[in-house]
């Protein structure tokens, strides 16, 4: 069991951190060029040069392109109209049509942004090339925005995904193990034997949960080491602060595990209920979808999600270098949560029925 507890989360951290990316690469790009001029070729070359697009087909007509899209062979069709170059030169205005496979809506949105960027960039250069120097003088100066991504300069998704996934793994393992632990004693009958002994309720509960508290720290340590060594995630803030927060966070998870085992009689039941909560916690933690874009009621629900606070705290401390005062709101809520959860669980746990 012990190797499983450690090896599986490490594998998950390494695999998921590489796989859970929002970048979209290798977009299957095709085009229908009705113009066939140096201008239209230049536009297509722009796409070819991009690392995101693989230009895989050149269709003679839109109809054939549509068939290929239906079969899933291409993701994007760019249609360049006839007289593309001429209209651009004369009227300084023309249109191109883009068709994007939107079966995966999120991916389609990202692809649209990429295409727009390339077309706009091309457009700017085209205007310069086509305008006379006299026009240039009168042309308004372009306003250029230079984005600056704070705390994650290169927009490396691993930098923000690794701490999040690490948090999930620590939560999942400790919740599952603690939830099933006391239920297991019910199943094999040792709980009954323990209940006739003079052992105190709190002694028994601490004895059952303390090992998992320690285990949570060990998992966190292993995970942080991998984050630093394998993914080179910056750890700007204090590690001590992360551990300090985790100490309280784990109490919430363990209390929840104990609570679940109070209400279940078999390990299957405990597993099922643990999964129910874990899935909700993961999807509502703000790790994969920003909480701000959830409907209002869902945002209120996330207030009861301890994983959300842990994700926030690890990201804040690791990436922003947040200090104690910065994480105080999250810490306070977590401590309250821990007190309520454990209070309920201990109050509910009975040696006699």
């Amino acid at each position: 069991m012990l190797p499983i507890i450690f090896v599986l989360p490490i594998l998950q951290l390494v695999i998921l951190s590489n796989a859970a990316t929002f970048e979209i690469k290798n977009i299957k790009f095709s085009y229908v060029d009705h113009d066939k001029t140096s201008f239209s070729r230049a536009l297509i070359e722009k796409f070819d040069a991009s690392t995101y697009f693989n230009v895989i087909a050149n269709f003679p007509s839109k109809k054939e392109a549509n068939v290929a899209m239906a079969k899933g062979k291409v993701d994007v069709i760019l249609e360049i109209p006839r007289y593309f170059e001429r209209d651009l030169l004369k009227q300084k205005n023309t249109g191109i049509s883009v068709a994007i496979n939107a079966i995966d809506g999120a991916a389609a949105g990202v692809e649209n942004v990429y295409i727009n960027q390339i077309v706009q960039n091309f457009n700017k250069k085209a205007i310069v090339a086509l305008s006379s120097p006299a026009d240039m003088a009168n042309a308004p100066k372009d306003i250029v925005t230079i984005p600056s991504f704070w705390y994650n300069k290169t927009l490396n998704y691993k930098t923000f995904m690794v701490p999040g996934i690490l948090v999930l793994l620590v939560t999942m393992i400790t919740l599952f193990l603690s939830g099933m632990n006391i239920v297991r004693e019910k199943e094999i009958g040792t709980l009954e034997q323990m209940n006739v002994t003079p052992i105190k309720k709190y002694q028994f509960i601490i004895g059952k949960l303390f090992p998992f508290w320690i285990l949570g720290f060990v998992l966190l340590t292993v995970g942080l080491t991998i984050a630093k060594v394998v993914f080179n995630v910056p750890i700007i803030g204090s590690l001590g602060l992360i551990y300090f927060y985790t100490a309280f966070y784990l109490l919430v998870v363990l209390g929840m595990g104990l609570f679940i085992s109070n209400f279940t009689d078999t390990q299957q039941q405990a597993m099922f209920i643990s999964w129910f909560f874990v899935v909700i916690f993961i999807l509502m933690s703000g790790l994969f979808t920003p909480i701000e874009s959830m409907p209002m009621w869902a945002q209120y629900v996330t207030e009861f999600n301890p994983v959300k606070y842990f994700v926030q705290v690890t990201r804040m401390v690791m990436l922003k270098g947040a200090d104690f005062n910065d994480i105080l709101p999250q810490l306070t809520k977590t401590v309250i949560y821990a007190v309520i959860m454990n209070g309920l669980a201990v109050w509910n746990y009975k040696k006699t029925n």
Partner: protein
Amino acid sequence: MSISVKNISKSFKTVNAVDDVSFEVKEGELFGLIGPDGAGKTTIFRILTTLLFADKGTATVAGFDVVDDFKEIRNHVGYMPGKFSLYQDLTVEENLTFFATIFGTTIEENYELIKDIYVQIEPFKNRRAGALSGGMKQKLALSCALIHKPKVLFLDEPTTGVDPVSRKEFWEMLKRLQQKGITILVSTPYMDEAALCDRIALIQHGKILQIDDPKEIVKHFPTTIYDIKAANIYKLLLALKEYKHSYSVYPFGEFVHYTDKREDFNPQELQQYLEANNHQNIKIEITKTTIEDTFMELAK
């Protein structure tokens, strides 16, 4: 009184597991609860070991009330549930040390009490409890239940699923423990074990049928029982049930146990009846009444 139960009732949803049960066990007595599966034996044990609250009635164990002084009871009783329930992934020695520690004692302190039993499993003390044989597990469980020198020992069907040799050994161990002044309440579905108790309570459907010395219980049996044997036992059973004077007929080992309604029953008459019904190798003998016969009679 070491154990005193007064009008205890307990029901689960629609089932009356224990129905108005009262009995008393004297100090140092070996008391047996004898009854078939589902008679309510385990429920009585769970109430007396403070694992379950009774719906009605009161009970005391070692002078402590099972509801008000449950904490005291837990210090003074040893409980061995019907199902093996020690930590299977701890070794024999670890289990024993663990339970000794929980009761705030050490193995050395009460070694005298468990010595007889423990020496038999000592060669395996580094083996995990889950890997022990059935008889060994039971000896370990008994050692763990005794490690804190309890005043009262509760054994819930300790010999179910145990081989005959181990069963015999186990009862000898109980007798020795009794001599050390420990009150023992034991339940069993085996009628032959009942004779080994000081007193027994016959129990069925949550009700006590009779409480007495096993010898007395047998003595009070109203009529004489006959062992009857023939070539075809099944046909014999049917024929006896059809016989107009028959009172009770039930299979018992290789024989059929038969009692008659009449006081002046003549076995010769029955022999003729059976012969007339084409039975061969007929054998009719008077037999000694056992507790099982009494139970069958009471449970009728």
